[in-house]
C-alpha cells in the first residue's frame, strides 16, 4: 500500500469536519474499502483520530462500525472472506505493511468487546496473561505490580484484591468488563478499541466504565462504538457517524449533538426516519 497521503484524494473524500483537530493524529484512515466476499461493508472511509482523546463511532446496526474498528487492529485478517483496501496508519505508519507483525500491532492496539470475555482463569492470570506472553516483566514481583496497577487503573482493585485467585468468570458483569479493561491496559497499549463495552451493564457499572474512560484518555487514544447517543455525548470529544458503510460526518462531539451538518446525522441522532 502507498504510504504517502494523497492530498487531493483526502480533500475530496473526507467527510465534513466542524473544528480543526488540535491534538496530533494517532490513527489516520484514507479511502478504506472493506469487503466480505463480494459484499462491500465500508466505502471510501477517510478519518483522522486524534491521540489521547475519546472518539465515538455511532450509526445504525450493520453500518460498519465494528468492521472499521476491527481494521484498526487487523482483527479482520482472521475473517477469511474479508478484504481491506486503502490506507490505515498509526503514527503515520501503514499498519497493513507486510513487514509489520499483526501480533505486535495488537499489543499496541487493545480491544474490549461488547460481552465481557474473561478467560476461565483466575482474576490474577487474566491480567497477567498479556504481560507474560509479551515478556513485559522480569520477575514475579514486577508482574504483581503490573497486575495491581492495571486493576487499579480499571478501578477494580478494591473490589478484587482479596480474591485474586478466584475465577474471573465468577465476577459480576460490570466487574468482568472492568477486568477485561484491566487485561487490555496491562500490556500498555497506545490505542484502546471498545465495541459497545457497556451494552450489557447497568447504569452504575456503565458510569464506572465511563469514569474510567475519562481517566484513561489522559494516556490512551480511545475509540468506542456505542448505540447510546447519550454515552457518546458524555464520554467522547469527537464523534463519527456511519451510515450504510459510509462515514457521513465527523466532528467535535458538541457540534455533532447540537448542530450536525448532515441531515442523515440529524435524523439518526434525533430518532427520525433517515
Amino acid at each position, binding site marked *: 500500500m502507498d504510504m504517502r497521503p494523497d492530498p487531493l484524494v483526502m480533500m475530496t473524500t473526507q467527510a465534513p469536519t466542524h473544528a480543526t483537530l488540535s491534538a496530533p493524529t494517532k490513527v489516520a484512515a484514507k479511502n478504506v474499502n472493506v469487503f466480505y466476499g463480494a459484499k462491500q461493508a465500508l466505502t471510501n472511509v477517510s478519518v483522522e483520530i486524534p491521540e489521547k482523546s475519546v472518539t465515538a463511532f455511532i450509526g445504525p446496526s450493520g453500518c460498519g462500525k465494528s468492521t472499521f474498528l476491527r481494521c484498526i487492529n487487523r482483527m479482520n485478517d482472521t475473517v477469511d472472506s474479508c478484504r481491506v483496501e486503502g490506507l490505515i496508519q498509526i503514527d503515520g505508519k501503514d499498519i497493513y505493511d507486510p513487514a509489520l507483525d499483526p501480533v505486535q500491532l495488537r499489543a499496541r492496539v487493545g480491544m474490549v468487546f461488547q460481552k465481557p470475555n474473561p478467560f476461565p482463569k483466575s482474576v490474577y492470570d487474566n491480567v497477567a496473561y498479556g504481560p507474560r506472553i509479551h515478556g513485559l516483566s522480569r520477575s514475579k514481583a514486577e508482574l504483581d505490580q503490573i497486575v495491581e496497577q492495571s486493576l487499579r487503573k480499571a478501578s477494580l482493585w478494591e473490589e478484587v484484591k482479596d480474591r485474586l485467585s478466584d475465577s474471573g468468570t465468577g465476577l459480576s458483569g460490570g466487574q468482568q468488563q472492568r477486568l477485561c479493561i484491566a487485561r487490555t491496559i496491562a500490556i500498555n497499549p497506545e490505542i484502546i478499541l471498545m465495541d459497545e463495552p457497556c451494552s450489557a451493564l447497568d447504569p452504575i457499572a456503565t458510569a464506572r466504565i465511563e469514569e474510567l474512560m475519562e481517566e484513561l484518555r489522559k494516556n490512551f487514544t480511545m475509540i468506542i462504538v456505542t448505540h447510546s447517543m447519550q454515552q457518546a455525548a458524555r464520554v467522547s470529544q469527537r464523534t463519527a457517524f456511519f451510515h450504510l458503510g459510509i462515514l457521513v460526518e465527523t466532528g467535535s462531539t458538541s457540534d455533532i449533538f447540537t448542530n450536525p451538518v448532515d441531515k442523515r446525522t*440529524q435524523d439518526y441522532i434525533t430518532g427520525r426516519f433517515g
Partner: protein
Amino acid sequence: MSEHIVKSYEQELTGLDDKISQMGGLAEQLVGEAFDSLASHNPARARATVASDATIDLLHRELEEQVILMIARRQPLANDLRQVISVLKVAGELERVGDLAKNVAKRAQAISGETHPKGLLTGLQHMTDLASRQLKDVLDAYVARNPERAMQVWRQDENLDAVYNSVFRELLTYMMEDPRNIGLCTHLLFVAKNLERIGDHTTNIAETVTYMTRGSLPEGERPKGDLTSSTLMSVPHR
C-alpha cells in the same frame, strides 16, 4: 423535516410550538389592549388586561414543566435540543412581555382620571404599533423557522428605539413646561420605557429563532438607537 419514529415525541414537540403560538398571540393582544385602555381612559378595560396576564404566566409555567419533563424523558439532541431550549427561552421572553404590558395597564388605571394634553399619545400609539408588529413578525418567523425574517425584526428594533427617544424628549419638555404635568408624564415615561423593553425582548426572541434554526447566534452587534440613558435636558433658569 422527517418525522420521529416515536410519534408521541413528535406530538410533544408540536405541542410546545402550539403553546408558544398561543402565548405569543396573548402577549401581542395584551400589548394592544393595555395601550387602548390607556388611550380610552377605561379603567375597567385596564383591569381586565391586568387580569389576562395571569394566563400568560400559567402557560409559561406549563411550558417550563413540559420542557423539563421532555429533557428528562427524551434527552433531545441536535435540532430537537435546540427547539426545546428555544421554547424555554422564548416562553421566558413572552412572559416578560406580558408583565410589561400588565404594567402599562396598571398605569392606565392610575392615570385614567387625568386629561392628556392633546397629541401626547401619538408617539406612544406609534410605539405600541411598532412593538406589536415586531412581536407578530418574530412569532411568525419562529413558527416558519425563518431566520432571515427573525434577523429583519432584530435589525428593525432600531426604529422603536428612535420613536422612544423622541417620546422621551417630548415628555421631558411637557414636564418642564408645566410641573403639574409631572405626575402624568412620569407614568407615560414608564409606559414608553415598557414598550421599548418589549422591543428588546422581541429581539431576544429573534436571536433565539436564529439559534434554533442555524445553531448559532447572530453575528455582530445589534443596531441600537436608545439614547435616553445619556440624555439630559436641563430646566432653563427663570
